Structures are given as structure tokens and as C-alpha cells.
């Protein structure tokens, strides 16, 4: 079972990554000024402050706190939020679904639009469709997300009144659409460009010439021989973009008041709610690692030359 041992090895490899991330966040938060106490009030009674710090265990040295945190983490306990006194796991569980909705809808938008755009552009390089598609792609990559979000809000919510301007509402597509498009534009643009480049390169391959010598139409050549070969490159881009999406989701969630992990993270950072920050970052890192593992497995399904050893 080379596949199973590959999976186990990859899962074990995630442990040092996770530890490194946790350590980094810990160190950063012990270095930056301010704490949960100072974020709540500018002129708190020093005695109250001391008592709170004792209660929350903030007066221990960093390495002691880190040791305690890791020990609890090993049992699946993410700690308790300084702010809400809720277990961090519960907080994240409530926020996970909206973020997943947002990220996967954005990715679906990016793939469903970007990949066909790249294919169409590659079939007539230099043609009108190609120029138009690449103009869209370059624009999509250059636009700042918060600005695009504001423009979309203004246009579709304020002026046209077709969609709600922000908020989660009942979580339906109506609410999802604007934030998902805002978030999905840059991966869409990148996918269009990579797909175009990949298809153009594959079209010059010897086996494409063989396919043409068999007497098949260009559409068939693409469908039967180019698509699957391009998929490996498209998938790689998708994997990397998932990571970027999770980062950019922070901005978009904040902008659209989307109750996801991204806005939880921002609020927690601002209030120095260390356990909540730790937990959110950890979950994002784990999700990123999981998606990349899934993509590595998919490689082998698409390309038989890739073996898991």
C-alpha cells in the first residue's frame, strides 16, 4: 500500500509545521505591546490588571505558557477565549461553516470562469477573445480586494438593489454572492493565465501532433488529449490559491461583516485574545495542509506517471 504509507507520512510531516506555526504566533504575541487587559481599558487599576493577568495565566514566562498550551492542545483543547470565556473550539466551530462557504464558492467561481477562459484564449492566441480574456485577467490580479468589494457593494446593493450589501443573513447564495466574487476575482484571473499558458504549451507537444494526424478536430484534440494534461497545472495553481484565499478572506469577511474565521481572527488580534488567535490560525493552517494533501493525492489520479513512494 504505497498510497497509505504516503498518506501517513504526509500526516506526520504536518506536526512540525503546526508546532512551528503555534510557536511563531506565541512569540509574536509576547513581543507586541498590549494585552487583553490594556485593550479593554486605557486606565485600568494596576491591581485589577494584575489579578486579571493572574487569572488568565498571563503572568507566567512565555516558555511556561507555551508548554501548558501545547499540553492542552495535544488533548484537543484549544483553550478558552479571554474575551467571551467560551471554549475556542466552539467559537471556531460556529465560524467555520461561513468561511468554508465563502472560500469554496469563491474557488468555484474562479475555476468555472477562469479555466474555460484560459482554454478559449489559448485556442486562438492573439485573437480578440484572447486579448479580452487576458485584459480581464491582468485587471483581476491588479485590483485591490477591499476596493473591488466596495465597488460591487455600491453597484449591486446600493444602486441596483439586487443583492444585500453585507452580512450573513440566512446564509443563502444571495448574501454569499458579493463577498465570494470579490474574493474569487484574483484566483480566477490567475487560473485563466495559468490555464492559457499550460494549454498553449501542451498544444505544441508531439502527442498533439499525433492526435491531429489521426484526423480529429481541434475540439476533440483538446477534449481527448490536452485537457487532462493541463489539469495537473490547473490543480497546482488551485492548491496554492486556496492558501491565498484563506489569507484574503480576512479582508473580505471584515469588509462584508461575514461571520467567518477571518473576521474572528481580526477581532481577536485587535483585542489580544491570544487563545482565539492561536486557534483560528491553527485551523487555517490545518485546512491549508489538508487541501494540499488532497491535491497531491489527486495528482496521482490524473497523471499515472506520478507514483507515491
Amino acid at each position, binding site marked *: 500500500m504505497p498510497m497509505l504509507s504516503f498518506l501517513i507520512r504526509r500526516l506526520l510531516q504536518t506536526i512540525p509545521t503546526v508546532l512551528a506555526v503555534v510557536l511563531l504566533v506565541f512569540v509574536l504575541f509576547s513581543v507586541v505591546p498590549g494585552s487583553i487587559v490594556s485593550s479593554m481599558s486605557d486606565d485600568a487599576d494596576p491591581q485589577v490588571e494584575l489579578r486579571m493577568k493572574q487569572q488568565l495565566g498571563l503572568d507566567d514566562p512565555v516558555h511556561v505558557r507555551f508548554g501548558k498550551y501545547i499540553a492542552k492542545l495535544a488533548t484537543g483543547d484549544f483553550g478558552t477565549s479571554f474575551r467571551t470565556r467560551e471554549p475556542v473550539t466552539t467559537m471556531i466551530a460556529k465560524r467555520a461553516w461561513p468561511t468554508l462557504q465563502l472560500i469554496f464558492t469563491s474557488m468555484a467561481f474562479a475555476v468555472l470562469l477562469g479555466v474555460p477562459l484560459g482554454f478559449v484564449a489559448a485556442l486562438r492566441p492573439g485573437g480578440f477573445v484572447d486579448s479580452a480574456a487576458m485584459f480581464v485577467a491582468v485587471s483581476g490580479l491588479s485590483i485591490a480586494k477591499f476596493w473591488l468589494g466596495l465597488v460591487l457593494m455600491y453597484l449591486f446593493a446600493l444602486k441596483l438593489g439586487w443583492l444585500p450589501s453585507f452580512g450573513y443573513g440566512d446564509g443563502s447564495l444571495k448574501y454569499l454572492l458579493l463577498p465570494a466574487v470579490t474574493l474569487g476575482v484574483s484566483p480566477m484571473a490567475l487560473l485563466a493565465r495559468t490555464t492559457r499558458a499550460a494549454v498553449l504549451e501542451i498544444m505544441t507537444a508531439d*502527442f498533439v501532433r499525433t492526435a491531429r494526424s489521426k484526423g480529429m*478536430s481541434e475540439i476533440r484534440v483538446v477534449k481527448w488529449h490536452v485537457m487532462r494534461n493541463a489539469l495537473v497545472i490547473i490543480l497546482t495553481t488551485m492548491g496554492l490559491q486556496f492558501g491565498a484565499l484563506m489569507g484574503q478572506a480576512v479582508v473580505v469577511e471584515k469588509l462584508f461583516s461575514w461571520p467567518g474565521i477571518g473576521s474572528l481572527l481580526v477581532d481577536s488580534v485587535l483585542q489580544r485574545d491570544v487563545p482565539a488567535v492561536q486557534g483560528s490560525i491553527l485551523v487555517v493552517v490545518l485546512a491549508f495542509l489538508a487541501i494540499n494533501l488532497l491535491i497531491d493525492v489527486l495528482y496521482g489520479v490524473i497523471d499515472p506517471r506520478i507514483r507515491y513512494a
Partner: protein
Amino acid sequence: MTEAPLIEVEDLRIDLDDGAKRVAAAEGVSFRISRGETFGLVGESGCGKSITALALIGLLRPPLSIGSGVIRFEGKEIQHLSAAKQRDLRGNSIAMIFQEPMTALNPVSPVGRQIAEMFVLHKGKSWREANKLAIEALADVRVPAPERRVNDYPHQLSGGMRQRVMIAIALACGPDLLIADEPTTALDVTVQAEIIELMRNLCAERGTAILMISHDLGLVANVCRRVAVMYAGRIVEERGSADIFRNPSHPYTQGLVDSLPRLGSRAALGRNRLKEIAGVVPAITSFPDGCRFNPRCAQATEICRTTAPKTDMLEAGGLVRCHHHA
């Protein structure tokens, strides 16, 4: 020639468009191949033999295109056919095998499926039927355990096996003409002989004509009844393959024959140093005036540098393009 030719090329010119101007990558190319005949096209790399083959099967891509001339297949001009009509011909009546079997097959598609495509495309079969026929086709090219091999991917096969798959694809629909572009150049010498033998036998059985392209005059003369030698985009000599060895007429052909390693008399006498042709094939954009071989030719005179030679008929049969031919 008694019977009507299967394919006839007349004064074919292939243009190379380098953006600024068009230059002829090949010109004045004429030859005919009869049904079931074996015909060879020989020359160094860059002499225009592969693009001539691609022109026949309609696969020239920009910057290359057919400039002028006529290609007749079974008496009908095919160079201006619509794309759809050309596709019906391609693979079905004219098939092609390429040089590099590793890259000529799709790496992410099972070989059986790549053969089966031919039956789906040209014979209107369902995939299920086509897969059965693919197994038969693999058996025909002597691939052992074909029912297992159909599911293999190209990287799981050896170079020789891959070229057998290419032959199976090319011959799947029983074409009238098989174009083999350096079919064994990428293979081991021992495998070469097997592949050539296989290709020759299968085509002979089915009455398929072969246009074989190679830089190896020895190999081509071995397989083909007639041979045309190309140099710098022109055919310089066309003869029966036995004649071309016995008394080559064009100095370039002479050079090719002399550069072949031969066992026997010369080796026995200890004079087994191989001769080479000095110089290299000129680039398409800088073909010399007159006879294009003149800078490398020992017999070149003033006229060779100014006037392109006409194609002459030889008394012994055959054609040659040289001012000083024997």
C-alpha cells in the same frame, strides 16, 4: 509507370513565413508513389523531408504553409480540401508514424484508448467495440499479452513497444499510405530491425504503400523500392534503390553512399575509414545561388554557382538535378 499513382506530388513549394518575408523551405518537389509501393525520402536534418511529409498529411502549421504545387491522392487534389474533408483522409487513408515514441503518445491516456480513438473517429464504433478492436490491433503488432497491455500507459512500455503502439494506431483503419518519419531513429539498433520488419510485413499484407523518411540511406534502400534524395529543400536524385548504391549520379548522393559504413571489400582491404561530406546543410534563409550543393561539392564549376540545374532523366531510369551528372 503503368498504374495510376496513389499519391502524386507536383512542383510542391513549402513556404516559411518568418514575419518579414516568405522563403521556400522546400521547392520543386515532385514524386509519385503507386499503390502498395515503398518509397524513401533521404537527406540530412533540415533538408525538408519531414515538412514534405507533413504537407502530404495536411499538418503543416504556421509559420510553414504550402506555397504552390499540387498534391493528388487517388487522382484528386487534396491540398485545398476543407479542414473537415482533410480530417476524413487523415488517419483513415493517410497515416503517419513519428520519430519519438515517448513523446508522440499522450502520457496520461492508456495506449489501448489511444488506438481505440481511431475506430471511434473513422469507423463509427462505440468505445466498447473500439476497445476490443484495439486489443486485436495490439496483437497484430506482436505486443505480448495485449488484453493486459491495452490498459498500460506509455511510460510503462519500452521504446520498441511504444513504436509498435504507434504502428497499431497508424494501421488501425487500414490506410492506403503510411508515412514513417524516422520511425526507428530513437530506438536501439536491435529493436530497429524488428520494428522495420514488422512495419514492412504488415504493410505488405495489407497493400499499404510506405513513404519512409530517414537520414539513413542504408536503411531506406533496404526497405524501399525507390529512393529520392533531398538536399536543401530540393530533390536532387530519384532512383531505384539498387541503382542508387551501384552508381549514384549526384555528388551529394555519392557522398551519402560513401559515408555509409560497409562490411566487405573496403573493410577487408583495411581502407575502412569513412568519408564524410564537408560542411553543413545551409539554413533555409541563406540557400546559395545556383545549385544549392555547390559550396560543399568537389565537382562544382562556375555554372553551378550561378544557375540552378534542371531535373534530367537518366538513361538508366531515374531523375537527377546536377549540371555534371554522369
